[in-house]
Each structure stands twice: as structure tokens, then as C-alpha cells.
């Protein structure tokens, strides 16, 4: 830096170059821990699963190659298709309302006049702090099969309906499990959306007000399009999460979890194959089929959520 005259620009450029190089090295170095751990415990096991899916293996004796037999066994098993159906039904019932209600709650919590904001935010977020096991246990008592369990009491006394065997009927189990998923996650999504809403610069709304846009137009043309990254994030994570449902039904049904089929999910089917029946080949095949199913649903949902913003922009022009 002490140099003077003509040398200065050259030195500066050199320094800039070496800075750039340093930044490059730092950049790679700082993201390396994730990739190293990922290679070891994420990527390698994932690839090994693919290998295992073509082997017959009980965990002890040597593996033997058996081609597509594992996939055939899984795909022709009615219980597998039941688990796919269960997962999708509970996924839709548990997550779609959750995201919509989360958006509404976040919108309301952001209103300028609102008092007690802190109180509402804390209480609405609190269910997320309960572990899935805890939620499933609480709901297993709330929604027990007994004719006068609290859920059945509400059904019979307030709605005049018949009591439901919540842990032993086709729709009873699905509704109870969807409700516990909804209850636990709605506050989490609300907080994410709230952060999104508050990241929208105020001058956008001011400009819109000057242009004469009403509240609803502002919501439709500013809030929702600006929230797109947050909506995409939550739709993505909850789709992936819904396809992986395991803890809630397992704990909710307790000892019956792996013998009943009303709430058996894909991951439960996989777990049962691997750790109850010692059939690691078919379990790995199931894992790969699960990946395909998750990818399909994630792509569909990404397309749908991406569509929101594009349509808006088109209208605005």
C-alpha cells in the first residue's frame, strides 16, 4: 500500500487477484463440512440402498443378487399399495389445511392494529414444541376408542354423531392422525410465513395505496407473489415430510402399529420389512420407490406453487 505513482494500479490489481483467490478457497472450505458429512452418511448410504435393492439379504448371510425380484415383490403386495394410499390421504388431510390456515394466521398476526401479538404468536407456535411422540400419546388418549373419550364425547354431545373407534377404523385413524399433524405444524408454518410477510418492503404497499389498490388487491398482487419463496419452501418441506410420516401412526397405534393396516404408511411398511422381517432387500426397494413417489409429488407441488406467481405477473402487466 505504501507504493506510489505508476506501481500502484498494478499492485492493487495483484492484491485484488489474491483476495479473489483467498475468497474462493474460503468459500470452498466453509461449505466443505456439510459436503463431507453428507458424502459419508447421506450419499454413500443412499447409493448403497440402491445396490441393496437388487440383493436378497437378511442382514447376516451373504447377499445374493436377485434382479428386480424385490421390486416385483413390493409392487405386487397389496399392503404396500394400501400404505401408499394411506400416506397420500393423510398427507393431503394433514398438510393442505395446515398451509392455508398458516397463511391466514400469519396475515392476521401482521395486522398493524393487533395487540397481544406476542401472546398469539407464542401460543400458536407452542404445539410445535411438543414432540411427535408426545403429540401421538396425547391424541391417543383424546381420541381413544372408548365411547366416551373426549373426541367421542364432543362428537356425540355437540354434533349428535355416533362415536368412532379412532384407533381401529379406516377413517377414524386417518382423521385422528391428520389432526395431530395439523395441530403440531400449523404454528411452525405461521411463523415462517410471518417472517416472509414482514420481509416485504413497506414502500410497495405505499405505492399500491397511492395507485388506489384496495386491501384485497394488495394481498393478491403484492403479499402472495412476494411470499412465493416462503410458500415454495413450506410446500416443499411439508410435502416431503408428509410422505415420510412414521412416528405419529407408530406411537398412536402402539402395539398394533405394525399389525394393522388402517394407518400403515410407506415408511412404516419399509421399517417393518427391514427391522421386523429382516428383509433388507425389499425394504431398500421400498426406499427407492418412496424416493420416486416423493420426487413426483415434490415436482407437482413445485409446479403448482410456481404457477401462482407467474399468473399474477401476467395479470399485472
Amino acid at each position, binding site marked *: 500500500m505504501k507504493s506510489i505513482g505508476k506501481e500502484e494500479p498494478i499492485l492493487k490489481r495483484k492484491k485484488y487477484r489474491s483476495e479473489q483467490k483467498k475468497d474462493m478457497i474460503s468459500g470452498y472450505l466453509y461449505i466443505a463440512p456439510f459436503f463431507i458429512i453428507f458424502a459419508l452418511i447421506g450419499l454413500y448410504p443412499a447409493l448403497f440402498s440402491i445396490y441393496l435393492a437388487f440383493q436378497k439379504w437378511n442382514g447376516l448371510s451373504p447377499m445374493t443378487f436377485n434382479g428386480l425380484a424385490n421390486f416385483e415383490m413390493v409392487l405386487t403386495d397389496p399392503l404396500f399399495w394400501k400404505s401408499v394410499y394411506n400416506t397420500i390421504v393423510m398427507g393431503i388431510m394433514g398438510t393442505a389445511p395446515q398451509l392455508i390456515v398458516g397463511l391466514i394466521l400469519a396475515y392476521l398476526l401482521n395486522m398493524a392494529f393487533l395487540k397481544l401479538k406476542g401472546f398469539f404468536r407464542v401460543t400458536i407456535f407452542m404445539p410445535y414444541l411438543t414432540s*411427535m411422540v408426545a403429540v401421538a400419546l396425547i391424541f391417543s*388418549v383424546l381420541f381413544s376408542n372408548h365411547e366416551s373419550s373426549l373426541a367421542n364425547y364432543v362428537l356425540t354431545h355437540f354434533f349428535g354423531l355416533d362415536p368412532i373407534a379412532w384407533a381401529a377404523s379406516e377413517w377414524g385413524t386417518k382423521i385422528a392422525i391428520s389432526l395431530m399433524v395439523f395441530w403440531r405444524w400449523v404454528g411452525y408454518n405461521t411463523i415462517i410465513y410471518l417472517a416472509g410477510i414482514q420481509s416485504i418492503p413497506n414502500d410497495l404497499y405505499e405505492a399500491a395505496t397511492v395507485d388506489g389498490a384496495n386491501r384485497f388487491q394488495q394481498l393478491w398482487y403484492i403479499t402472495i407473489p412476494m411470499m412465493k419463496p416462503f410458500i415454495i419452501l413450506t410446500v416443499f418441506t411439508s410435502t416431503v415430510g408428509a410422505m415420510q410420516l412414521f412416528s405419529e401412526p407408530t406411537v398412536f397405534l402402539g402395539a398394533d402399529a405394525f399389525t394393522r393396516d388402517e394407518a400403515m404408511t410407506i415408511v412404516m411398511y419399509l421399517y417393518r420389512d427391514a427391522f421386523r422381517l429382516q428383509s433388507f432387500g425389499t425394504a431398500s426397494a421400498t426406499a427407492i420407490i418412496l424416493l420416486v413417489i416423493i420426487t413426483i409429488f415434490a415436482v407437482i407441488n413445485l409446479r403448482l406453487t410456481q404457477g401462482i406467481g407467474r399468473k399474477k405477473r401476467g395479470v399485472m402487466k
Partner: protein
Amino acid sequence: MSKQARKNRKKLSVGRISVYVFLLIASILSLFPFYWMFVMATRPSAAYNSIPPTLTPGNMLIENFKKVLNQIDFFGGMWNSFILCAVVTIVVLFISSLAGFAFAKFKFPGKNILFIAILVTMIIPPQLGLIPQYFLISKAGLLDTLPGVMILFFLNPLGIFLMRQYISGAVPDELIEASKLDGCSNFRIYWRIVLPIILPAFATLGIIVFTAVWGEFLWQFTVLRDPEMYTIQVALAQLSNTQHVDFGMILSGVFWATVPLLIIFLLFNRLFISSITEGSVK
């Protein structure tokens, strides 16, 4: 005041009341299962199906908890869960903020592709590798140990995403340029300048990671088979596997396992909520 303005005001106040009503109902629905869990934890097992429903606490709070202690190693489970979550949280905060800093502020070839690659790893279901992961941990002799559980949780793509978003908004480029001119190394910039600025985001991500790991079940259930090594989740799940299901006992266990976490949340909630809501994510 013009007629129109008065009309608007009236309309608004009706709207305002319905906003409060809606939020109040949401709050009650959020809190009720907690309250009901507390009520059941203080009552004999039979209370769960009494008509009309039991809605006031009884006097069996300690008695039910003693039954829990006879059934599972409650405090051992809590301790194991705490150690697990504390270590994972610290490691994830470090890895995520460092990577988030790199993605937000450095230029290097392949940056965008690598960032997308991290997001794509989110789509890989943890169950895809579950079986090889189990055998990997088993081969490494880490079955029934906490490190065996931890290592999988160190992977947190969402953390990197959040940290990148936060750092690119909250840490001005000029500040980094200025520190570079002062001769600060990149790591020193991270440690001395970036870290203090992103502490609120640490609270957010920290709570998200801590609670997620605290509540995770499948992996802990798979790796921990020895009752002595159970985390609280695996231990709690055993409560409903007994011959005579005692609901008062089960919910007592859930209650005492949930309370410490709620206390931690209420202690940190100010930091947490301010970090998320006061324009932090820009």
C-alpha cells in the same frame, strides 16, 4: 369527520373484532391439548372417559409420575436427549452459518450449483439411506451410543438456506470490504463481524434444530435399542406398550418431558420472536 370515514371506521372495528376472535380460537385450540394433558397427568387413568369430561386438575401429579419412574428411566432419557440436542445444535449452527456466509458473500465457481445441490439433498428422504446408515453406525461400533445418533443430524440443508438468506440481508457488503482493507482474514471476519450480527438468527435456527432433534423419533428408535441409552422419545414410546395401559401415567410422562422444553422456549421466545419478526429476514 366525513360520513364515509365514519362508515369505514365502523366496518373496520367489526373486522377487528373478528380477527381477535379468530386468533383467540386458534390460541385456545393450540393450548387445550397441553392443558388437558396436565389435567390427565393429575388424575387416575379412568378419568379420560368420564362423562362429563374431566376438565379440572386432580391430586395425583406426583403419584402418576412415580409410576412413570417405575416404568422407564425418565431422567436418564431426558439427560441423553439434552446432550444429543445440545451437541447437534452447536455443530449445526457452526456448519450452517459458515456455509451460509460463504454462499452469501463469496464468489467462487460452481457456487449456485452447489447451493442448489444442498437444497436438492432436502428431497432425499432420510429413510432412503436408513438401512445402510444403520449398518454403517453398527460397523463403526456406534450402535446404542449418542454419537451414533448425532452424526446424521449434523446434516441440515435448511439451516444453510436460512443462514444464507439472513446473512446476505443483515451483513452489509461494505462492512466486509472495510474489514478486508483492515487486513482481517476471512475467518476472523466470520468470527468477529458476522457472528455477532447473526446471533438473532442463531436463536431462531437453534430453537428449530433443538426442537426438531428433540422430537425426532425414527432414527433414535432405530439406533438406540438398549433401554439404558434411550432418549426421552424412545423411552416415552415404551409407555404405551405396557399390558395395562394407564393413561394417567402415560400423560404424566409426556407432561414432565414437555415442561422443560416449554420453559426453555418461554425463556428464549423473546429473542426468537424478535429475530423472526422484526424485519430480520430481508
